[in-house]
């Protein structure tokens, strides 16, 4: 791997405002009624002892991606930087990858009839040393992104300081998106 990308999502800073989702839609021309990233919120507990769960839904860029191994045409593939991409030309929309993805991160683009998902904005931004659109737009700095090998980077420093949770870690998929869990309110 040439890069060790990581996207950190701090639930304590996230306010569920959906700026990330709209920024992604603009940047990637995501069609209406489907999305690559959204934050879902859910009230937990019984009045007045409550908490709010903030959950980011997007591709988590697995180190061991189930979507890649099930793809019959190699349309889903892993780049040398360890990112998971989809080659539109090879995709036959068989939806195996959609079923295989434990994070429900993939969908059919209804205009192109191919499978799509978050790419970390690799083509348009990250490959040009820019931050992904969601990270750049977030009103509260809840997202940070970078190469973990750069020790001085915010993503590295925050990773050292905070307790990180990797979604569905028990599946062994090794996601590159990590969560800093909410410290306030009822948790379940």
């Amino acid at each position, binding site marked *: 791997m040439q890069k060790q990308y990581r996207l950190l999502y701090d639930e304590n800073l996230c306010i569920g405002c959906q700026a990330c989702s709209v920024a992604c839609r603009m940047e990637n021309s995501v069609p209406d009624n489907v999305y690559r990233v959204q934050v879902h919120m859910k009230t937990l507990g019984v009045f007045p002892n409550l908490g709010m769960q903030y959950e980011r839904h997007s591709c988590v860029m697995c180190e061991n991606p189930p979507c890649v191994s099930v793809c019959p045409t190699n349309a889903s593939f892993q780049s040398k930087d360890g990112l998971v991409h989809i080659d539109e030309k090879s995709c036959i929309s068989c939806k195996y990858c959609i079923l295989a993805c434990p994070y429900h991160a993939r969908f059919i683009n209804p205009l192109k009839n191919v499978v799509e998902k978050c790419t970390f904005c690799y083509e348009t931004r990250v490959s040009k040393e820019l931050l992904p659109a969601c990270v750049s*737009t977030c009103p509260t700095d809840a997202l940070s992104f970078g190469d973990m090998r750069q020790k001085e980077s915010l993503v590295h420093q925050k990773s050292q300081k905070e307790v990180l949770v990797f979604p569905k870690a028990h599946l062994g998929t090794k996601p590159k998106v990590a969560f800093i869990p909410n410290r306030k309110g009822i948790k379940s």
Partner: protein
Amino acid sequence: MAYLQARRDFLKIATTGVSASVLIPGSLGALGDVALKGEDKFIRSVCEMCSSRCPMEARVVNGKTVLIQGNSFAKEMGTSLCAKGVAGASQLYDPQRLVTPLIRVGKRGENKWREASWDEALSLISRKFSALKERYGARSVIFSAKTGEQYDLLRSFASAYGSPNIFSHWSSCPIAIESAFAHTFGEKLYRDFENSTYILNFGHNLFEGLDIPLTKAMAHFSANPSKKLVVCDPRFSIIASKADEWHPIKAGSDLAFILSLLHVWIRDGKYDKRFVDEYTIGFDQLSDAIKEATPQWQQTLTGIDAKVVERIAAEMYAAAPRCIIDWGHKATTTKAEFQRTRAILIANILMGNVEKEGGIFFAKTAERINTLACEKVVPELSDPYPRPRINEPRLDGAGEEGEHRFISRSHGILQAIPDAILSQKPYAIKGWFLTRHNPLVTVAYPQKMKEAMEQLEFIVVNDVYLSDTAMMADVVLPEATYLERDEGISKYSFKSPVYAMRNRIVQPINHTKNLIEIIRDLAERMGFGSHYAWKNITELRAFQAKGDAELLQTLLMRGVASFDVPPLLARCSSSVERFCERYPKSHLLKDTQGLFSHMLHSLKTPSGKIEIFSAEIEKAFKGYGVPRAVDMDVTQGYPYVLTSGKSAVHTNGHTQNIPYLNMLLSSNPIWMHPNTAKAHGLKMGDTFYLQNAISKEKATVFITEGIRPDTLFAYMGFGRDAPALKRTHAKGTNPSKLLSLESATLCGAMITNVGVNIVKA
């Protein structure tokens, strides 16, 4: 709470794509495909998806997409922006948006139109307004707008025309705060969230009513384990979920809670005595007024345990002066709004946090900085909007002897309009010019307002959409969106002065116009073109900047201009020292403790001091001179209170129909506690009625633990009657339809907490 699929019941995401089969006259959709003419590089400007006016930057990609992000030349922004701001292009490109002037052909409100040229529309408006002036006098025409540059412009136009009846949205939003500040400090103050250590928040919902610099500061505050945020709100809002403590206070009872805080501090002598002695008047009257307001007393009113008040009082005093009791950005909940907001300001005063780090502070405007520096370090601006005072009484009696004597003549009370029109008292009203103002959605009792509008001879609405209010017009002017407008310079002063300027990102689609162009054209046609020293936007900007080419260049390139003035807090010695080092002449203004204390000795109040007690108010409104427990009932005998507020993806009455935002939140089911729902036999998604003496409105129920059982909540801006807003038409409930036209005492705020019954459908 939740947007999105996690709660399908709450948020019905549209399942169909584009399907508008009948085209709206004058709409962008009627034009067919349009390519955007704009540059493929970032242009810095100012957002207008809400009133926060965040600095932003935008660029056009391939003549099609407009990418928008925060303007990082404004350092508190970075590239951050909210969902509404980022979705700007979704409004620009909305096929349901208006791009051609419309003239009414059916009966008023019937929604029958024909398209017209700009020349025809403007000529008709100038002829009609001139005729109304001749026949009934200029005062027979009302002008209204949201505050901001457009309001300044319209106010100036009203003044040139000769009408005293100019209205802003103040009475439906910040009027209580503005009034409380005027009568306490003589001007408005701001909050230093980033340096505070303890914040007590009364429903100031910065995580759903976003203002990026403030929201960001509050997010970092609430996520910091060494700081403390306490939120009192009947609803488990997003900010409540981020608090260290959430107290589900009974709706309308904030005043009781604050009075008991004041009681504890004064009882125990735990307040900043030196500050109170040196800078304020009226402490003794306050002391008398809060004698009975014990923590025990407030318990039955607020539902918050007396011990909690004792503890919070002690914690805040320990944190003082790095503590803030937050007054919010919209305070229109009860009849006692003025008292509530004054009590909050006075709580800050007792904590001695004025002009202290982590406390509250006066705006450091260019004029103030230049005075303190004893030299001209920041360019000052000319006012391009002249407004000679019209010496006639206003229709609402604002500024005259009587119950509205303390209401600003420049902002007025919107709730007074229907009665004045219908009763023709104090005089006949015949016309109305509204710019981007939608009172049929955002102001109380729109049914009555509509009835009144039907009586008028001529109505002009300037808007992006054929809104509920626009439907009542004779002429609808399709305004250019903010992405298509060049405008003048606006001031943003916090701890140091900042200017910002709106620069056009794309050429206006179908030659839509800016209000500046519209007003200039109308003034010319109506024979008072000489009222303005400028002829077009370029001249306006140059006039405003007093020909300062460098300032204009900076604003064109960067969208914002700041002046490297060190942030100044007058009662913080290190800050004053830094300022004096930079501007040596200012050393002379320092007092013996090295502070600029003189700033607080010559305020624009009658006494020149901070007024805890206001003799002027006591004289006109007995018992109102200091905060007291009055008028906290918001139920009017009904079993439930309906409250309302914002979501992060919509603004008051403006954004609900914008495609990308509508996809995120397309309706407003009413929040209800499970026990309440059970008592009325309601299940998630059921239809029911909200009923009171004013109206009976259909609603859908959203059942959640996140609300008091005696309280209901609705997001604002839904329940639209306008068929041209195809995505929102007839979806959700307009809570304004249940509100009375009664105003809060003294300050004139619209009252948005209202008693209702739940009636099964």
